């Protein structure tokens, strides 16, 4: 069991999100930085879609009541045990009674803590992801609070085999502005040329009232042809809505499923993790790419995760190569024996 001694700012249980219920108005939820989320699960030998903890800027303090293996990825949340700093992106063995205290991230926005076996919370509509807005998933449909107790599931890999596993460390938020690639549309025709120009050539600041539902951006006003209203239609994660007042809102994990404002563009899947690591005050610039480029980058992101997974299970004694045969990409792995 893991006991939440201090909950931090906004700590929730997430898996990869809820699929198949958007037509009933249920938001997908899930991690804001899915790449860091998956890396944490891979380190501790979990399937990718295992329930892990999402931590936002101010980290929690956790007490463990049994032996386990954890890993923390994402922004630098400065985890410590008895005052001693622990490495992120590397498995950590915890004993019964251990207290892990996390600090405040100097940059970036989200860290992920995975535990071998995952956090055992009930599934709601097929998913453990917490939607604070819909009050479902995770721990009673809410963020974690002091005193919460979380059960741990059965690990799929023997704990001893997980010791010392690591990925190279990643950093977030140090280079500003962050370039975010988008596919234009679906309603880019509702904006003037000058409006499109403003959107693609300005620097926007992530506003203070940004959260897991969406990021409100501050910066130059984007000009519509009309009043910015449309007949309500479906929204995706990454939709960039521009309401009547002309300032963009990026719709994220706990977004609504439908909306009545024009959407000038959509953040590409490969760049959603970058958005999730932006905090209020960070700056971003948008860059338009083609759908083919966006899907290639998404494929690259998935291939990279696959390669990292293979490297872990073969104890870094392998090399993975990507080749193309008749235009279709294939991964193959050469392992030393």
């Amino acid at each position, binding site marked *: 069991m893991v006991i939440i001694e201090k909950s931090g700012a906004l700590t929730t249980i997430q898996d990869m999100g809820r*699929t*198949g*219920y*958007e*037509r*009933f*108005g*249920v938001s997908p939820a899930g991690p804001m930085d899915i790449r860091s989320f998956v890396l944490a699960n891979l380190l501790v030998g979990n399937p990718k879609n295992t329930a892990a903890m999402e931590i936002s800027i101010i980290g929690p303090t956790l007490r463990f009541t049994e032996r386990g293996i954890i890993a923390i990825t994402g922004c630098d949340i400065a985890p410590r045990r008895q005052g001693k700093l622990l490495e992120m992106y590397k498995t950590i063995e915890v004993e019964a009674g251990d207290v892990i205290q996390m600090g405040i991230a100097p940059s970036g926005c989200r860290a992920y803590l995975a535990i071998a076996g995952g956090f055992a919370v009930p599934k*709601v*509509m097929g998913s453990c992801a917490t939607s604070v807005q*819909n*009050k*479902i998933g995770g721990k009673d449909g809410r963020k974690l609070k002091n005193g919460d107790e979380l059960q741990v599931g059965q690990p799929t890999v023997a704990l001893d085999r997980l010791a010392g596993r690591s990925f190279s460390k990643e950093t977030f938020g140090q280079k500003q502005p962050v370039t975010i690639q988008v*596919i234009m*549309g*679906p*309603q880019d025709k509702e904006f003037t040329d000058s409006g499109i120009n403003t959107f693609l050539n300005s620097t926007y600041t992530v506003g203070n009232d940004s959260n897991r539902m969406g990021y409100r951006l501050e910066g130059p006003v984007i000009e519509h042809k009309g009043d910015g209203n449309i*007949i*309500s*239609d*479906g*929204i*995706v994660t*990454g*939709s960039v809505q521009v309401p009547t007042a002309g300032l963009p809102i990026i719709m994220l994990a706990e977004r*609504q*499923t*439908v909306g009545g404002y024009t*959407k000038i563009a*959509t*953040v*590409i*899947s490969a760049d959603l993790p970058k958005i999730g690591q932006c905090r209020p005050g960070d700056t971003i610039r948008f860059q338009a790419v083609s*759908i083919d480029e*966006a*899907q290639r980058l*998404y*494929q690259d992101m*998935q291939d990279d995760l696959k390669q990292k997974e293979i490297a872990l299970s073969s104890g870094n004694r392998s090399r993975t190569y990507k080749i193309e045969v008749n235009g279709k990409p294939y991964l193959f792995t050469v392992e030393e024996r």
Partner: protein
Amino acid sequence: MGKATIHFAGDQALLVEFEPEISIRVNMKVRALQYAFEQLKLPGVTELVPTYRALLIHYDSLRLSYKKLTEIVEKQVENLGEVKLPKAIVTEIPVLYEGEYAPDLEEIAKIEKKTEKEIIKIHSQSDYFVYMLGFAPGHPYTARFENAFSFKRRPTPRVSIPGGSIVVQLALSDIIPFEQPCGWNIIGTTPVLACDYRKKQPFLLQAGQWIHHVPIDRKEFDDIKRQVELGSYVCKTYEKKEE
């Protein structure tokens, strides 16, 4: 029958738009395309989200290319006329139009220059079409096709109204599933839940069906509410009669 415009909604979804109007004629195309895709069960299609005049098709680009999906959408749109939709269902929603459960009824009657009884009759005699669900889980957007009210929203929205509220403006009527802020007038309250997470299928309604409001008295309200709490109440449903 069909003519549609296909837009990219990012790299994992296509938005298929029909004519820009809110009408049952256009919405039937959305319904037909959704139904065609439900029958196709195309590997890689992950989610279908119908709205007034558009269908959002989520897909996994690692399993299905947008070129292939676009071709399939175009073909399906061409053949929409041949899609035979299943018979539409009507669900009866019991409504108490009384006292604190209908805080704006008196005002509505004044605006419409009618008696409260006449207002209740207007609201409860028509079938309402469920165009889509959204805003909150289980929240329907419904409309009737005759006798629209003349008023829109209240001048100042209320900070919070309770779940179960039936709210109206013009020809529109919504069921509020959970407590929320709202600027519409409350005409009555239903004891049934539009979204009940205790159930395996939590949602009372789905897009493309109809609802019919049935006036109940205070005793019936309490009675149904008790059954809802026990999870034993089932709304009456029947097939919509052809018009």
